[in-house]
């Protein structure tokens, strides 16, 4: 007679060390084998879109900070680009360059958190602290520029809240020289570590066809092998003036599109971001960063879907304007929200430990998923 067995439902989160925030995963298990993963979100819902309908365009900027709080600069950036396109505001070139510098530094900072916490999820504690040490440098640069370390409210519609600090360029160059060895160190300590590779290669494989249909963007999509980056393919700001590569997953350690590929794409992207920052610092033009900030943002009747390449993927703002002070509707397309939505498909048939490995490789920020 066969023993009667039943599946066990394990609730991971909302309070769990590696759900990266208040995410609840309802994991259905057969022993340690994952049958299904059902994400439950909304614990951090702050009605961003409802708020937007009652605020004027410039007032929304600080609210965007709080979505992806690890990449606030880029949220500001995306929003400013969207509104400027809709209101046809031309910004001075210096503003664009500074935005790109900030955006790329922010990308490095965000990837550092992603990689560090990913190591932590897999059980390697030390790389996390090494990476956070360097993230501190970037945060200090931001603090020097705008006074804030996490939520900047720096990139405004039509300009910036402050010009660069006189020391900024020098300190940024210092950071770049000191940061390159850290990437090498990270590769030695974690990326090529046998145990780490065993844990992440061939885990949570996302084939390219599926990735596109599922709406995966950013490192998720590039990890699956598609050379697609909005900075080049749907360019905005002054990104077309810089020379940089788009790293893609090549399946070096396993299958194309596995967790290791997604991880490694982020490592390579940091190098590319450094290149962009260096070029931007070299070409940095003079100008008044507040010159184009309108006294009152007048947005004509119309609508726009504008998207930028956030560290986590495609960050889109869909804005409908009725020609009033406040937007009629703002819909955000957060990258993590979409990337998280198919975690169940990635985890099926793996073990419990792999759920963590897959979740970490997606790199979600719950502030952005729930808005």
């Amino acid at each position: 007679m066969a023993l009667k067995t039943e599946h066990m439902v394990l609730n991971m989160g909302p309070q769990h060390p590696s759900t990266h925030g208040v995410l609840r995963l309802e994991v259905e298990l057969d022993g340690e084998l994952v049958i299904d993963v059902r994400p439950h979100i909304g614990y951090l819902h702050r009605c961003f879109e409802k708020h937007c309908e009652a605020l004027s365009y410039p007032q929304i900027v600080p609210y965007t900070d709080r979505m992806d709080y690890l990449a606030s600069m880029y949220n500001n950036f995306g929003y400013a680009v969207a509104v400027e396109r809709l209101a046809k505001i031309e910004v001075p070139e210096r503003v664009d360059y500074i935005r790109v510098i900030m955006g790329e530094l922010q990308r490095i900072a965000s990837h550092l958190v992603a990689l560090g916490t990913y190591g932590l999820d897999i059980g390697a504690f030390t790389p996390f602290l090494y990476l956070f040490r360097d993230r501190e440098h970037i945060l200090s640069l931001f603090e020097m520029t705008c006074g804030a370390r996490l939520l900047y409210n720096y990139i405004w519609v039509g300009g910036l809240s402050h010009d660069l600090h006189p020391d900024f360029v020098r300190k940024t160059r210092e950071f770049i020289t000191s940061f390159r060895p850290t990437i090498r160190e990270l590769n030695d300590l974690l990326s090529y570590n046998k145990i780490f590779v065993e844990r992440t290669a061939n885990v949570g494989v996302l084939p390219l066809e599926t990735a596109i249909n599922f709406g995966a963007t950013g490192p998720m999509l590039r990890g699956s092998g598609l050379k697609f980056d909005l900075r080049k393919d749907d360019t905005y700001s002054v990104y077309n003036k810089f020379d940089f590569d788009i790293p893609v997953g090549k399946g070096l350690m396993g299958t194309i599109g596995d967790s290791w590929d997604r991880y490694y794409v982020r490592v390579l992207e940091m190098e590319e971001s450094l290149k962009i920052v260096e070029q931007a610092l070299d070409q940095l033009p003079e100008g008044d960063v507040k010159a184009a900030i309108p006294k009152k943002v007048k947005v004509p009747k119309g609508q726009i879907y504008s998207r930028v390449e956030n560290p986590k993927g495609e960050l889109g703002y869909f804005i409908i304007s009725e020609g009033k002070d406040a937007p009629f509707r703002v819909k955000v397309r957060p990258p993590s929200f979409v990337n998280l939505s198919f975690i169940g498909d990635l985890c099926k048939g793996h073990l419990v430990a792999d759920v963590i490995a897959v979740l970490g490789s997606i790199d979600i920020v719950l502030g952005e998923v729930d808005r």
Partner: protein
Amino acid sequence: MYEILTNLLNNTIIAYIISAILPLFVFILPFALFAVYLERKVSAFMQDRLGPNRTGYRGFLQTVADILKLIQKEDIVAAGTDKWFFNFAPVLVFIGSYAVFAAIPFSSIYIGTNTDIGLFYIVAVSGIAVAGILMAGWASNNKYSLIGAMRSVAQVISYEIPTALVVLTIVMITGSLNLNFISDIQTQYFWNWYIFGGPGFTVTKFLLIPFMITAFVIIYISTLAEVNRTPFDIPEAESELVAGYHTEYSGMKFAMFFLAEYANMFAVSAIVTSIFFGGYQSPFGYLGNLIGLTWLIPIEQLFWFTIKGLFFVFVQMWLRWTLPRLRVDQLMTLCWKYLIPYAFVNLIIVGIILLF
């Protein structure tokens, strides 16, 4: 130790009690205090941090403060738990690791009980902790604890096999299960240690060296797994299972698990030291012999034993802060597909070498 105390006090019962309590107060507690501090400082050093530096000189009293905190903490027993098992489990786990110390020779005169089946006893008694862990996981009535406990049991039982096989290899060479005897014959200089083929200059010794090194690597890996340290800390993998089988424990009961873990760390290091690295023997003669003070020798021996044990504890910490964690199936693969076959082959080859 017991014999000496009996002679000294003329009372077997008091001698029993003293020799039972002695390792706890003389060794395990101070060691745990020191090891936790060491772990923090080592990890801080490796991670470019400062570590504890506020309580006492360079944070030396940090663990004492921690213990005080743990004692004062509320002892939470969740509603759905099986109270008896829940309360008994930490005690059992601690008994398991504490009992091991009974047969470990700290120095030639300081050994809990100089039994002839020391190694066998250690292998057997360390299994008690498994029951405690399973009990803790089950009684907690928490899925994370249960999964952690199941993993732990599977892991500890699997890894006892390569450990036992390596122990068997040593027993074959020495012809004894008595740890004191095994330590004793590796005397004088470090090339007499079993990692270097054992005492005496014979062909056998040199033939044995590579196989002894293999055996040492195997037993070190498997003991690392037995005490659930990274990269084998799967039962308490914090990123997956929160804290594994001790998720629901707080206060003093948690401290018991904690203490047991650190006691275990030293216990396995001590075993490895005893059978491969000459136990309490000095690597190069004794000062006591040199200046003619024979009573100094046991103290020196204790010193060397502690140093060697601490070195292996340090290596454990070093690994912990360097390596990521294996997955449960990879852990089992490592044990059953690699360690056990290698240990077996090693055992057979050593057997053949010893025949000639």
